[in-house]
């Protein structure tokens, strides 16, 4: 029998309830792929995290360092250059000064009515040489004053020279020189003052600045003198040169002011900067291990059993780098032993198939296993537990899990109180690399290791917070005591385990700064 049929409906009906079984190979491949991805996923975040930590440290050491040191490194360079410059200029000017001073002395001998001026000149020269000495004795900060003094000497000499031609003008110039000299002396006094009080530079900033302002005034005076000199036909060219020189010198004075400010700023920064940035601290701590969740990491059936954290030891060494006086970043390595025990259990031997799932028994077929108290007795022979021969144990049997980690913390420490006795807050992250671990059973007359736990992550993390108390024994040695709380983030590969472990430790140690 044949009938016409729409081709769509032939296929539609035919395939509607089509089901087909793929070969088992497909599921095997899927599992393999998932496992691979899990591994990759595990590895990648670790690299990213460790890379991140490394990058952070590198950043702090390079950028942070240059940020905090940049002004220290650059500023003195400029100052040194300037000192050299100033000294050079001073030496260049020296013959001229001397020559002109001689000239002026000759002039003053000739013209007795110029006594005042020449006396002033001598005084100015003395000041100048004094100042020179000071400059050379490496008190960089106020070297410019000597230069100015030199200039004022030149200026006064000029007015002296001019005075031979135009007496009235010279007198005026002399008077002005007097004023200048007075200013110089005043500023010198202040300068010396600030020198002797190096430590209190901050306090002297204003004063020092005032000095510079005074010196500026001084130059104004000088320029006036120069203008006065211009009136004299003879010295026009020379005077112009001097004005040029002055204006040059003036520029360098502004530089000097800027420099000085910079210097003061850097000096301030120096005070904030810690003397020793690096610090190494071996430490030891009793650590207590417990869980926030009420599950059991060994078997869900133990969730309601009494579980006690054990007190074990952690020891290691930390290296810290002080970013600023109050803030430091630290890392290190610690060996951490953790343990906890579960009671309310009974022990028996039986085939591995019915034993604890979270324990890796190796290749053994008949093994020691543990169950809730009373499970064996109540179990029917057909039951899983029916295959287990109970072991009679004396006293309460304990199921003990011991875990050993290598902990690499990265933490920030901030000093809330920073005196001889210090108080710090600490926060950070630790990477925990799983070392040895074992699950064992202990009773009064019986003690055996079951095997490794197979559900522990080989790499896990913890978040750390703590309080750091320290007492500075000397400049370099500090005694620390730090109660820390560390909450583990992914200790178990099976996230369904409602066991949220943390550990607390009181870390104490002696730290050494260098």
């Amino acid at each position: 029998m044949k009938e016409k049929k729409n081709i769509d409906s032939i296929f539609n009906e035919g395939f509607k309830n089509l089901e087909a079984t793929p070969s088992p190979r497909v599921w095997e491949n899927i599992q393999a792929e998932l496992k691979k991805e899990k591994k990759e996923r595990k590895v990648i975040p670790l690299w990213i995290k460790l890379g991140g930590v490394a990058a952070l440290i590198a950043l702090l050491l390079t950028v942070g360092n240059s940020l905090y040191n940049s002004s220290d490194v650059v500023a003195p360079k400029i100052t040194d250059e300037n000192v050299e410059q100033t000294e050079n200029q001073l030496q260049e000017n020296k013959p001229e000064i001397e020559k002109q001073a001689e000239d002026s002395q000759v002039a003053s001998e000739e013209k007795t009515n110029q006594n005042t001026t020449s006396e002033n000149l001598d005084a100015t020269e003395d000041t100048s040489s004094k100042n020179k000495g000071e400059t050379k004795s490496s008190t960089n900060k106020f070297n410019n004053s000597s230069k100015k003094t030199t200039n004022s000497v030149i200026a006064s000499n000029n007015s002296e020279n001019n005075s031979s031609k135009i007496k009235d003008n010279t007198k005026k110039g002399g008077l002005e020189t007097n004023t200048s000299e007075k200013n110089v002396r005043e500023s010198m006094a202040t300068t010396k003052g600030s020198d002797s009080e190096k430590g209190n530079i901050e306090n002297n900033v204003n004063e020092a600045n005032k000095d510079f302002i005074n010196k500026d005034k001084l130059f104004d005076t000088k320029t006036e003198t120069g203008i006065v000199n211009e009136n004299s036909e003879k010295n026009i060219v020379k005077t112009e040169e001097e004005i040029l020189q002055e204006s040059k010198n003036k520029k360098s004075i502004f530089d000097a002011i800027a420099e000085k400010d910079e210097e003061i700023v850097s000096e301030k920064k120096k005070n904030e900067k810690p003397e020793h940035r690096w610090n190494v601290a071996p430490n030891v701590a009793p650590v207590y291990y417990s869980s926030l969740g009420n599950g059991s990491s060994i078997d869900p059936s133990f969730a309601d059993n009494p579980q006690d954290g054990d007190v074990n030891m952690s020891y290691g060494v930390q290296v810290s780098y002080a970013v600023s006086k109050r803030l430091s970043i630290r890392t290190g390595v610690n060996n951490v032993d953790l343990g906890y025990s579960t009671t309310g259990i009974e022990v028996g031997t039986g085939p591995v198939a019915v034993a604890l799932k979270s324990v890796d028994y190796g290749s053994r077929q008949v093994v020691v296993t543990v169950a809730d108290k009373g499970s064996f007795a109540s179990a029917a022979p057909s039951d899983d537990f029916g295959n287990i021969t109970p072991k009679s144990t004396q006293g309460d049997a304990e199921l003990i899990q011991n875990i050993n980690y290598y902990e690499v913390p990265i933490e920030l420490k901030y000093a809330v109180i920073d005196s001889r006795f210090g108080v710090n807050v600490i926060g950070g992250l630790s990477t925990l690399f799983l070392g040895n671990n074992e699950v064992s059973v202990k009773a009064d007359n019986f003690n055996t290791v079951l095997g490794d736990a197979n559900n522990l992550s080989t790499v896990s993390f913890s978040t750390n917070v703590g309080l750091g108390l320290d007492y500075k024994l000397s400049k370099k040695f500090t005694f620390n005591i730090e109660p820390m709380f560390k909450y583990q983030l992914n200790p178990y590969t099976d996230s369904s385990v409602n066991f949220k472990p943390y550990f607390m430790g009181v870390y104490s140690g002696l730290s050494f700064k260098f």
Partner: protein
Amino acid sequence: MTLDELIELCKKQQATAQGELYKRYNRILFAICLRYSPNYTEAEDNLQDAFITILKKVEQYNGKGSFEGWMKRITVNTVLQKYRKQRTFEIVDEGQIEDEAEVEIESEEIPLDFLLKIVQELPDRYRLVFSMYVMDGYQHKEIAEMLGISDGTSKSNLARARMILKNKIEDYNATK
């Protein structure tokens, strides 16, 4: 275990739940793969890729619509990604064929594996369009969008697929 519980556990990437999900749905999804793939081996490869995608994206399933439908869509998309870019052997000007031509043939008992075989033998694009339109209920507009072709091309591909299939069935009937 209810489906919702199973989905929840799969979202936690729990291995046993993943196995259970596969056990429940591999046959239905494999049927889709068979229709969209040129042969059995490639269908298996596609099922593998699709199911991995399902397990990876299960977190994105928000409970709206049926989970089965969601898995089917992922499966179809996985297969489309693989074949839509492969160049179809374009024979003639596609626009010349009437779109909604009803293709009728004399129907006898035609074995399912023969039907499957001739679908798989279709050129990639024809096979995709035919499977999507006839068996999975996609509209031409959706098909065009998903394959990156025009509505017209989709319609013409469908018509050509029908013609090829009709001829093959007729040949088959003739040899009987």
